[in-house]
Every structure is written in structure tokens, then in C-alpha cells.
């Protein structure tokens, strides 16, 4: 666990830079995290992030790509367009959530 200075405040992150404290996150931080991986957030990105955050709060774990499609209603192809190459990893990174498990 490390502390990173971002957005003018202290953010808890893991070795790979994923935010580890749910409450450290806010929409401004999302913009910053997105910039780190070369993304610029649109309204549609934010809708996806919203779903991830809310689902995490209810389920206690980061939803898989399949769940974001099945339950959140975002087509997989669109997720690949919004978060190119590695949507599962990128979405959770920008949403300030742990990497989804299940990839084992």
C-alpha cells in the first residue's frame, strides 16, 4: 500500500496504482486517472464508471466485463471502444476500484 499525491491530496493506491480506498475517489480524480492512461472521459465513460462504483458498493467486488454488459447494459464492443484493449482493467482503474478478480 502506498500513498500517492494526486489532485492535490493523498490517495491510497496499490503497487499497480489502483486506488485502494473506495472513498478516496471522486469524479475529478477519475479525470486524472483517465489522463494517466491516455483517456479523456466523455459522458458515456462516466455512465460506465457510475455503474461500476454502484455495483461494487452493492456486491463488494469489481464487476467483470461480462457483468458490466449483462447487468449494466453496456455492449462489450462499446466498452472496448471506450476503454481500448483492456476494458476490464482500465474501467476499474479509472473507477478507483480493485482489478476484477475471477481472472484466475
Amino acid at each position, binding site marked *: 500500500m502506498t500513498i500517492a499525491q494526486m489532485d492535490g491530496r493523498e490517495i491510497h493506491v496499490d503497487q499497480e496504482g489502483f486506488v485502494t480506498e473506495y472513498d478516496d475517489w471522486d469524479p475529478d480524480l477519475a479525470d486524472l486517472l483517465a489522463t494517466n492512461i491516455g483517456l479523456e472521459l466523455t459522458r458515456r465513460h462516466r455512465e460506465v464508471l457510475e455503474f461500476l462504483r454502484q455495483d461494487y458498493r452493492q456486491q463488494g467486488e469489481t464487476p467483470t466485463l*461480462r457483468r458490466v454488459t449483462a447487468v449494466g447494459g453496456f455492449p462489450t464492443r462499446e466498452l472496448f471502444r471506450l476503454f481500448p484493449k483492456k476494458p476490464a482493467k482500465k474501467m476499474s482503474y479509472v473507477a478507483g476500484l480493485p482489478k476484477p*478478480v475471477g481472472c484466475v
Partner: protein
Amino acid sequence: MNERRLVILGGGTAGTMVANRLHRELRDWTVVVVDRDDEHHYQPGYLFVPFGTYEPQDLVRSRRKFLDDAVEVVYAEVDRVDPEASMVHLQGGRELGYDQLIIATGTHPDPGETPGMLGSGWNDTVFDLYTLDGARRLADALESWTGGRLVVQVCEMPIKCPVAALEFAFLADAHLRRTGRRSATELVYVTPLDGAFTKPIASRELGTKLAERDIELEADFMVDVIDEDRRVIVSYDEREVPYDLLVTVPVNRGAAFVGRSGLGDELDHVRVDPATMQSTAAGNIFAIGDAANLPTSKAGSVAHFAVDVFVDNFLDHVAGRRMDREFDGHANCFIETGDGKAMMIDFNYHTQPLSGAYPLPGVGPFRLLEESRINHAGKLAFRWLYWHMLLPGRPLPLASEMSMRGKVPEEVNA
């Protein structure tokens, strides 16, 4: 009668182990196992069928024979569980009430889940490695193979035995070399993961093994459709991988009744507490083996370690005591690398596969994350252990909790 009834759905690896172990402990209970048929397959053997090492009849036994006589067996397809009424509905209308229920119906390949997979090329140029039938047909296709692009592909995680496809690629490389067809073959390994395996050190080691064998790695590839007329697989981000022969691991799904009963996740794997394997929806329902959505590998070895912990907990649970053992996700897999050698990995929820020796520090005899002949011998010996030790529920001299003894920590390794 105050006799209590334990119903176990699924009489495969996990269901058989747990039935045999529990009926010995729960003397005044009725133990019932439900399965759709009497064919118990040794699934790890499928991997060797395409190369003629095993014939199908080497891998199939009667389920009944491996269940203690006192265990009742019902042959039927499970249709639905009603957790509120503690009732199992079987197809054909029969009902089976329970005091405690264990779901051990595993996970299975679902080729219909990927558009195009069941098209014109199915069982002709596209083969499923995860069924005995698919493996057998693949044996014929390999026999007449003269060269071209042989693509080995995993659709989506999680799958059971996450290394089997990789092993197939290694074995195919060795097999084609031995039979003089390797230079005419382009071998490609396609995975939705960002490397050869999920965890970094093993991914690096296995990635090196692929490169050494001139097997191309196509990572981060989530298949959208298979176009069997053009013979290409297409990813969601519109990359295309052409093939002449495609060996695929379809999306793996739990039994459909799990979803219908409101007990599962998006892939019909039962939602459970990862430490106790108790359903998050009902206190008298548990899931073991591949059927559960545990964040560890789906493998027979994992089921074995999990059952050790589970049995102790379950006995506490039915006696009204707290369950105080916690499963750590211990997984232990041999990985065939061809030419009579194999690697081994040992890990759990928290510790990724490391190098070293197993089970005895410094001694082994198995080497972790290294190729050796003894590892391969271990893999082949596993078939005997499976039928004669694992299924009957005899103790193996291996600890259910993963141990750091004998492992080389990451820092030292780096």
C-alpha cells in the same frame, strides 16, 4: 423420522469426494447424490487424447462404483432448487427435500455462447478440447494435419483448468516436431489475458516457454465472433486471427439451474463465501468444486484441498457450531510442456505461483515453475491417485493450506 438428509447435486470429482467423506462422519444422515448419468470422466485425461496417449475408454468409469454403497444415487437432471422450501426439483417432476444441500455440478463448455462457433466449421476445422467427444475428433484432425495455422484459443475466464489450453499448445508443438510437421505449422496461442497466465511470475515464465518454442502469443484477445467461412476469429476491438485448425476452449458456464434458482452469478457459478463455500443466499446451501465462484483456479486439486477444509466446517455447521476453518484458495497444477516434461505451480488467493520445491522444501521431488521429468511423472501418476485415493476420500500427504516453505519469495527471485 428424525433422520436428516444431505443432498449433493453432481457426482463428479468434488461431489464424489464429499459424499464419501461425509457419509462416514454423518452416520445418522441419509446422503443422496444426484447426477444425470453414470459416466464419471477423468477430465484431465482429455488433454492427452488428441495425441493418442489415452483412448476414451481409459478415462471413463461408473460413478456408482466410486461412491460408497451407503450413499444413495439418483440419476436425473436437476431442474431447479427452491431455497425457501429446501427442495430440489428434478426434471420429470420428482422432488427431493433436503436439510442441507451441496451443489457440485461443476462448470462446462458452452460453445453456443460465442457467435459463429457452432457454424459450418464446428468439428471440422473448429474443435472443443474440453469434452471427450471434442478431444477424440481433434485426434483425427491432428492425425491428418499436414500444416498451416494451428490456433489454440481461450474465449473467456474463468475456465476450469486454466492451463489446459497452454499445455495443449506445448504438447502440439512437441508432437508435430516428433512427426516432422512442425516446420510446416504456425502455432498461435490466443488468450483474453494480458499474458500467458494470470499471475505475473508464472505469466513471465510461461511466456518464455512459448517464445522458446516459437509459439506466437496473441494476448488481450476477447473473441466477439468466429467466422468459420473465412476461418478467422474476430475480437471485440476488431483484430482478426486467421486459422486453418482452431482448438478452442469455449466460455465455461455453471449448470443452468443455478441461475434459475437465483443462486448464481452471470455465468451461473454459485455465489459463495470464499472461506467457507456457503451460499450467500441460503445458510443450508454450499457449493464446492468448479460450481462455486471462488476467486481461485477451477481444478480437481483445488476441489480436493477445499473439501478438506469444507468437511471440518460442515460438521461444525450441522452440529450448530461456528465454522472456523477458512479455505485459502490453495491450487496446485502440473503444466505439461512436452517431450516428457512438465512444470508445476502452487498458489492461493493471496500468493502467486513462485519458484522452489514441493511439497518438501529444498527436496521436492517436484520443482515449482521449472520443467522436469519428475513433474511429468507426477502428472501421469495423478490419474491413478484420482481413482484410488482422491475419489474414495483417502488422505493424501499434502496440506490443504498452501505453505510458503520451499518457495523462493519474489524479491529473491527478481
